[in-house]
């Protein structure tokens, strides 16, 4: 379906992106006051558990994966190959676990909430956007566009706080923190329903905060409705339902799809604050706790993991975009 040249180009681009982000992360770790080693040594010494200086040095090297005696380029190569081939992101101080393992456990939860939020939101904005465009200028159009605009002006974390206040604390419909019920994990209805009830408010925050994009869908649909081929379709007597789904929605979704990709990145990054508010133990909360406890190795690991996850997401979306839009297949972007 997708031309192999396009696929190759996108693959190379994603690899370049990941490489650049790794390099950036390496650079930033070295920007730590006194370098990562000195920093860690100070922390370990302050903890008081290790007295011997040499042992301290060794321990710090194990944790950070940096060996300061080597030249910088050697350290860089070690760091890169460690991350790429061994998935070695260092050792977390605060969690007492390997950073890679920490995020591997947390990431699916974040992915679940973010993806659900974005997809539900997408379905809503496409439906309402297309309908509002079809009834352009009507009372329905005015009310829905205005209210979606207002709802979409609520930052996701403000939406989260408001939802938590009303549905969590006042009405007690949903739990106010955590990610799963205290029942035995497994494919039981109690567990699954419990997981869903913990995820509902975070998902809802994302859905509400992105509602403003309905205006984009509406705008796209309005201009699609003005196209000549729609006039032709009407003259040919194609039922209006079919016109809406076949012609209007399909053509108006395409520009939104690239927006969806960027949204996914924003939403994923926003998980840091969203998960903190809901105490939802995903990648964002791990990152947040790491920052609060000055666990820089875990912090940088989280930055890397989230960025790579978003890059892969963008890659997948780009490839599938080529499948949806036949014009892309030529390799002309």
């Amino acid at each position, binding site marked *: 379906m997708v031309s192999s040249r396009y696929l190759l180009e996108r693959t190379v681009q994603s690899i370049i992106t990941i490489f650049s982000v790794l390099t950036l992360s390496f650079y*930033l770790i070295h920007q730590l006051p006194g370098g990562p080693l000195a920093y860690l040594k100070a922390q370990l010494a302050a903890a008081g558990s290790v007295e011997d200086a040499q042992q301290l040095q060794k321990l710090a090297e194990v944790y950070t994966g940096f060996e300061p005696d080597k030249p910088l380029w050697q350290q860089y190569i070690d760091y890169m190959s460690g991350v790429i081939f061994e998935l070695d992101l260092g050792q977390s101080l605060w969690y007492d676990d390997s950073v890679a393992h920490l995020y591997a456990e947390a990431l699916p939860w974040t992915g679940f909430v973010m993806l659900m939020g974005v997809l539900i939101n997408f379905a809503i904005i496409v439906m309402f956007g297309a309908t509002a465009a079809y009834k352009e*200028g009507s009372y329905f159009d005015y009310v829905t566009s205005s209210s979606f*605009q207002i709802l979409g002006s609520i930052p996701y974390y403000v939406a989260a706080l408001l939802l938590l206040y009303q549905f969590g604390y006042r009405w007690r419909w949903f739990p106010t923190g955590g990610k799963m019920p205290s029942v035995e994990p497994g494919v039981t209805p109690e567990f699954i329903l419990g997981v869903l009830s913990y995820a509902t408010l975070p998902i809802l925050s994302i859905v509400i905060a992105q509602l403003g994009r309905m205006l984009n869908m509406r705008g796209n649909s309005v201009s699609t409705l003005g196209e000549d081929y729609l006039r032709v379709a009407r003259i040919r007597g194609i039922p209006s339902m079919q016109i809406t789904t076949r012609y209007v929605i399909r053509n108006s979704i395409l520009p939104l799809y690239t927006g969806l990709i*960027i949204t996914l990145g924003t939403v994923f990054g926003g998980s840091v604050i969203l998960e903190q508010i809901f105490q939802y133990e995903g990648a964002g909360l791990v990152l947040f706790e790491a920052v609060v406890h000055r666990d820089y190795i875990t912090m940088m690991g989280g*930055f890397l993991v*989230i960025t790579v996850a978003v890059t892969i997401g963008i890659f997948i979306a780009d490839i599938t975009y080529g499948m949806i839009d036949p014009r892309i297949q030529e390799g002309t972007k």
Partner: protein
Amino acid sequence: MAEREMGTEESSVFNTVSEESVSRTSVLTRRYRSMRRTVRILAADPRTLISSVVLGFYLLMGTVGVIVVPAPYDSTGPMLLPPFQSLEYPLGTTGLGIGLFRSIVHATPFMLKLMLSGAGFTAVVALAVGLTSGYRGGYADRVLSTLMDIAIAIPGLPLFIVLATLLQPTSPYVIGVILAVNRWAGLARQVRSEALSIREEPYVEASEAMGMTERQLLLDDFLPNIMPFVMIRFANAAKGIIYASVALYFLGLLPSSGANWGVQMNTAYNLGNALSRPEAMHWLLGPMLTIIILSWALATFAQGADRIFNPRIRTRVADDE
């Protein structure tokens, strides 16, 4: 032709004095007419009008308001007074006995500076990168496009958190730039595609055939066409900067330097436990509503402005069946 004449006015350095004085009057009338048209379109949708008034109000709050409204630092008021109860504290007081309205007003200049520097940085970098990429094409385009793609792929908040933790900035201007460190990329990509389509225009070809320098071409033919587009996105960028900065302050990840809405939310949430105490909720609601209204105004204003420059959005097609 219109673009050429407008361009003459913009960059009079490149023209002889006599030419300039001839075209200036016509340019002025043209300007006046287009301004009237602009105002008409803005006024046609009450939402755009309201949003401009709201934005003006925030500007007033950040300039005159700071002088008129007394500073919030005297914590002599009653604790947790509900809103709309007294004239002295119209929005009530915090758990520390500080007037909420005063705090919100006195936080405005800081937020405005932040928005200005962040959105300004976004617009300038996006213009420079997008124009160069779209106009030059070839190798420069490839390199810059890759750069844009990388910057777009990096999720904002984690990057800001990492930078904020390492740099610990306190100046609103520095924070604004940090929060815009990859925001320019999305806009630059749009500027690039705009520039690509302008390149195809016949008048650009004509200018090129006339032997205009690259600098002249960019200033006269490209900039006037892209500027409105960038101005609209300026409002959206400002909205994004507000979102991100309040998020970081709310999480307590930026050193709190003076009053701002994010810090206020943080205090109400952590110190005031506002979520589980309905009597303290207005403490949290005050700054939150301030942010929501501002971001609504920015988004609505941008849309209204979009209608001025983008005739496609104006077309009305619903009733032609």
